[in-house]
């Protein structure tokens, strides 16, 4: 599973996606090193989720390349084996833990299925790994056996993270994965993600509109506005000293102690009529 070149585990270059007339993503490039983390920040319609969907193969790029562990993945997988290999390179955790789990499968069964498909291990070995993974994400034995409907949002998100990690991916895409969680639970999951990175060396691509979460979890950031990267750099420098007008406005819009909302001159930018 090691990356032969020692280069980035994920490399996106000149990525473009058109939906009919609309250019959703335009010439986006970035790279993530092993155990690194990058945030893609932007608002509705910025193209950030489209990028995530292209990386995991749910959308096909109009132009540009995506490579994980040095292997191209910008064209659809040609075999089940190829698809599985891609799954062991990149996994995704979606925003809504209420719709991303099979309602008939317990956490244990969900994780076990991934272990069986990806690694083909014998039941004993799978059972041991299920126990490790559920413990890693902080689910107790009762929760691990429970169906999703009996779990809270935070617990479901832990199941989704454990399922993604079961494939032992090199890159984990977190598409607004903590956005729907209560503040006290969000902190638990953010701490968990930091622990997981430390113990597994997985890289993160965090898709988020929440700059405080971005600050907490990532080293680098790209700021996306209407499909175009308007600013990039280390997370601390971009957030402390934003250069682009849009990043400045985004930064100024975040509620914080002493913050007063103001009617801006740029009314309705970042949103449009549909």
């Amino acid at each position: 599973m090691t990356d032969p070149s020692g280069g980035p585990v994920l490399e996106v270059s000149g990525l473009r996606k058109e939906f009919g007339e609309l250019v959703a993503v335009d010439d986006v490039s970035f790279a993530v090193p092993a155990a690194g983390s990058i945030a893609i920040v932007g608002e509705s319609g910025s193209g950030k989720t489209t990028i995530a969907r292209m990386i995991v193969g749910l959308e096909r790029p109009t132009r540009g390349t995506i490579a994980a562990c040095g292997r191209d993945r910008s064209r659809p997988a040609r075999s089940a084996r190829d698809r599985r290999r891609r799954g062991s390179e990149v996994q995704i955790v979606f925003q809504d833990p209420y719709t991303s789990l099979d309602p008939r499968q317990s956490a244990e069964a969900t994780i076990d299925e991934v272990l069986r498909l990806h690694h083909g291990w014998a039941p004993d070995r799978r059972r041991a790994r299920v126990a490790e993974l559920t413990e890693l994400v902080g689910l107790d034995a009762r929760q691990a056996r429970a169906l999703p409907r009996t779990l809270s949002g935070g617990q479901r998100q832990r199941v989704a993270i454990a399922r993604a990690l079961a494939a032992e991916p090199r890159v984990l895409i977190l598409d607004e994965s903590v956005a729907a969680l209560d503040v006290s639970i969000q902190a638990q999951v953010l701490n968990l993600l930091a622990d997981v990175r430390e113990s597994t060396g997985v890289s993160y691509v965090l898709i988020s509109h929440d700059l405080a979460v971005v600050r907490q979890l990532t080293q680098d950031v790209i700021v996306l506005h209407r499909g175009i990267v308007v600013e990039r750099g280390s997370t601390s420098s971009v957030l402390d000293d934003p250069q682009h007008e849009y990043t400045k406005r985004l930064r100024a819009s975040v509620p914080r102690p002493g913050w007063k909302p103001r009617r801006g001159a740029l009314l309705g930018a970042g949103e449009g009529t549909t």
Partner: protein
Amino acid sequence: MSGLGQAPEAERAPATGLSPAAVGQTPQVAPLLEVDDLTVLLRVEGAERAVLKDVALAVRPGEAVGLVGESGSGKSMTARAIDRLLPRGAKISGQIKFDGVDVYQMAGADLRSFRNRVAMIFQDPRAHINPVRRIGDFMTEALRTNLKVPSAQAAARAVDMLGQVGIGEPERRMRQYPHELSGGMLQRVMIATALLTEPRLLLADEPTTALDVTTQAEVMAILDELRRDLGLAMIFITHDLELAAAICDRTVVMYAGQVVEVRESVLLHDDPLHPYTAALAAARPDIGRTATRLAAIPGRPVSAFEAPAGECAFAPRCPHAADICRAGPPDLAELDGGLSRCARAADLRGTLRGADHD
């Protein structure tokens, strides 16, 4: 009273000298809204369970009060109880008074007038607007049917109000359908519509949560400005302490169906009175720095019926919990100009600080 008539006054609050809701505010102004001992039971999984327990709060004319809490805290349920929008079969005890009149005793003309004087806006504007009716038709309905304002006059007022919430080409917007407007624009339409009947109290339930941050800042500014211009009182419901503090004079923090703290908003972040408020502020990541470890609160937020009986509802998650906290449920007591439902609140003064991670 359809569906809500079941025992609104089953257990009336005894007339004590000082209502807890009145503490912590200027006493000479009579409150516009007064909620006392409000307890609400709902049928959950076949049994009747409490979702609100002894909620007390008051809002003066023109005052903005934040209502902050996590899932199950009862913040939305409180607003729904005030607006008589509780689900069918809900059992209510305690009292809600608007302008001195018991809201659950209102009927006929009084109730219609109450409906015009209390307006509500919700998190998801698309769920609260008829998708097949034009914006103008939706906006002017209350004026035309409840207040008998002639159509042309109602439309003129709607156009004017759309201008005030920062929507360009208001005449054209009036002819459009909801799907033709973005979420931020539709929420501004909802605010404009809510203000058309000249309400005195606005109940805003997470009105900006579904919006982008830059749009949120815009909508918050509009809400704040118009509210002040119109002398409108507001209850602003949110899970975000900072957002509430930005436009609210006082903030009420709820946990497990109860009010746990009432505090001037400017003091809430740096000088909270209740360990839960402090824990909530500390758990939130800081945009200005990366914490080695976030101060997560163990466990998960609970609703009133899940909270342990006979002790402080927050005790199982509280880093400051001691024997006294498990000995009995604490009362909401006055402290340093605010209110705190914490048996150790006085001991802990000065030690609770929201912003310390690490």
